[in-house]
C-alpha cells in the first residue's frame, strides 16, 4: 500500500471536517475522490501531505508519517486551488522552484505543457487569470511526476478544451510513468473513464470506496409506469425516486437479478446501469434528505 489511512479525524473548533476515515491507496492507480463542497476532500488531502495536523488516527505514506517528513514529502505533489505564491513570482519562478523541489521533474514535459496551455512564463502569477492559474497548477502537477500526485479541483476556470487537454496528458503520462494519482473533482462524468477507483466522501465520512469496474453494477435506473416500477422496487434499496406524470424513475442500489430484469422488460420498464455521476448524486443527496428507506418524492413537471 502506498498510503494507509486509519481512523483519521480532523476537527476545526467544533466542526469535524474529516470524521474517522479509513482507506488505503495502492501504488500506480488513478483514484477519484468525489464529494460535495464541504465534504472534507481538501482537508483530507492536506492531511495526507502533512499541511494540516490531524486530530486523531494514523496516516502512513510510503511506510511513514508524512508530517514534517522530508523523505515522504519530496515524493508527493499536491496541487490545490488555494495554493499561494510570493507576490513577486512570475510563472518561470514557480517552474524553477518546482524543478528544484521535485526530484522527478521533467523540464521538457513542462515546456511542452506550457506550449499546450499557452501560458506566458514571464507573467506575474498574481496577474494570471483563474484559468491560467489552474493551468500552472496542472503543469506543475504533471511535470513533477511525483509518485503520489494529488489534484484538488485543478480545472477551475479552464474551458472544456483545456480540461480535455489535461485529462489526455494525464492519461498518457500516467501510462508511461505510472504513479498514484488522486483526482478530486465535481465534474464526474468528464473523468469517469479515467478513474480506476472511486472514493466518495460525504460530511467528512467515506460513503463509498470501490473499484470503478465494480461500480458499473452498483446502482440501476428503472424507468416505466409508476405502478409497475413501485412493485418491482418494493423490496429493493431505493436511493432515489422521481415521478413524471404516470412515469416513475427509480434509482436502486445493487444489481438486479436476471428474472427481475426480464420481468421489468416484459412489463415496459427499462433498466439501465446508473452512471457514476447519477450514483454520486443519489448517494450524497440522500444523507441530506433523510434516511435511506424514505426516499424523497419530488414532483417534476
Amino acid at each position, binding site marked *: 500500500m502506498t498510503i494507509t489511512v486509519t481512523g483519521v479525524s480532523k476537527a476545526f473548533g467544533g466542526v469535524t471536517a474529516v470524521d474517522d476515515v479509513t482507506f488505503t491507496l495502492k501504488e500506480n492507480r488513478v483514484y477519484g475522490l468525489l464529494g460535495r463542497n464541504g465534504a472534507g476532500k481538501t482537508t483530507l488531502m*492536506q492531511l495526507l501531505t502533512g499541511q494540516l*495536523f490531524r486530530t486523531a488516527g494514523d496516516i502512513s505514506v510510503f511506510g511513514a508519517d508524512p508530517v514534517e517528513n522530508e523523505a515522504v514529502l519530496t515524493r*508527493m505533489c499536491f496541487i*490545490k486551488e488555494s495554493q*499561494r505564491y*510570493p507576490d513577486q513570482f512570475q510563472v518561470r519562478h514557480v517552474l*524553477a*522552484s518546482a524543478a*528544484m*523541489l521535485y526530484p522527478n521533474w521533467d523540464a521538457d514535459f513542462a515546456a511542452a505543457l506550457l506550449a499546450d496551455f499557452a501560458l506566458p512564463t514571464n507573467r506575474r502569477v498574481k496577474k494570471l487569470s483563474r484559468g491560467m492559474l489552474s493551468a500552472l497548477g496542472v503543469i506543475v502537477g504533471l511535470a513533477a511526476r511525483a509518485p503520489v500526485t494529488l489534484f484538488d479541483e485543478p480545472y477551475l476556470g479552464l474551458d472544456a478544451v483545456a480540461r480535455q487537454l489535461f485529462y489526455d496528458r494525464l492519461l498518457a503520462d500516467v501510462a508511461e510513468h505510472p504513479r498514484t494519482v488522486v483526482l478530486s473533482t465535481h465534474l464526474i462524468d468528464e473523468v469517469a473513464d479515467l478513474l480506476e477507483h472511486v472514493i466518495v466522501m460525504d460530511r467528512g465520512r467515506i460513503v463509498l470506496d470501490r473499484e470503478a469496474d465494480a461500480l458499473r453494477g452498483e446502482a440501476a435506473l428503472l424507468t416505466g409506469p409508476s405502478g409497475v416500477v413501485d412493485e418491482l422496487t418494493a423490496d429493493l434499496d431505493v436511493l432515489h425516486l422521481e415521478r413524471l406524470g404516470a412515469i416513475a424513475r427509480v434509482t436502486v442500489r445493487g444489481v438486479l437479478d436476471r428474472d427481475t430484469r426480464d420481468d421489468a422488460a416484459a412489463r415496459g420498464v427499462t433498466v439501465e446501469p446508473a452512471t457514476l455521476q447519477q450514483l454520486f448524486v443519489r448517494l450524497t443527496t440522500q444523507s441530506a434528505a433523510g434516511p435511506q428507506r424514505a426516499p424523497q418524492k419530488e414532483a417534476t413537471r
Partner: protein
Amino acid sequence: MNRALQVVRIQTFTAQNGLTWPWVILATAFVINVALFSVIGDDIPGGPKTGALASIYLTAAAVGAVLVHQHLPFMLGFGVTRRTFFTATTVLTAAWSLGSGVVLYLLALIERATDGWGIRMSFFDLPFLARDNPPLQIIEYAVTLLALVFCGFTLGAIILRFGATGFWIFTVAAIVALGAAAILITWQRWWGALIGFFADQPTAVLLTVWPVAIAAVAAAGSWLIIRRVTP
C-alpha cells in the same frame, strides 16, 4: 543540492523579496543626509552626527516578516517542511546580516578616509562602535541586524498563524507586559539600579551579547509558532 539550500536559492529568485529594500532605504537616507548637511554647512561643532543608520535596522525587521509571510505558505504547498524552511531562512538572513555588516564596515572605512564624506558627517562610523577592532565592529553591525530580522520573522509568523487579529492581540499583550514592568520598576524604585546595570556594561557587550540574546529568543519564539503553521 541540499534541500535547505534549494529553498534559500528560491527565496532569492526575485530581487524584491525584501533583502534589497533595507539597502535602498539606507541609500536614500544617506543621500538626504549628505544633501541636508551640505546645505547647513560646516558650522556644527565636531561635525554632524546622524542616526539615520537606524533606517536599515528597522527595515531589516520587515525583511524577516516578508520572507516568512510570502514564502512559507508557498513552500509548504511545494512539499517543503517547516523545519527546512526555518533552517533555510535562518541561513539566508544570517548570511545577509553578516554580509551587510561587512559592507557597513567598508562604508565606515570610506567615511574615515574621506573625513566624513567631505562634510565631517558621522553616518556609518558611529563613535560608540568598536572602531579600533574591525572584526568586532562588523559583528556589532551584523548581530544587531540579525536580532531585528528575527523579531520581524516572529511578527510574520504570528500574522501567518494567527491572522491580523492575532498580531494586534500580541501587540496589545506586549504593551501591557512592558507597561506592567515599567509600573513595577517605578513602584519598587528600580530605575537607578536598572540603568546602572546596563551603564556598567562595556558598549561592546551591549552591542553584541544583548542582540544575540534577543535574536535567540525571537528565533525560538518564531520556531514555536512556525512548527504548527498551516498554509
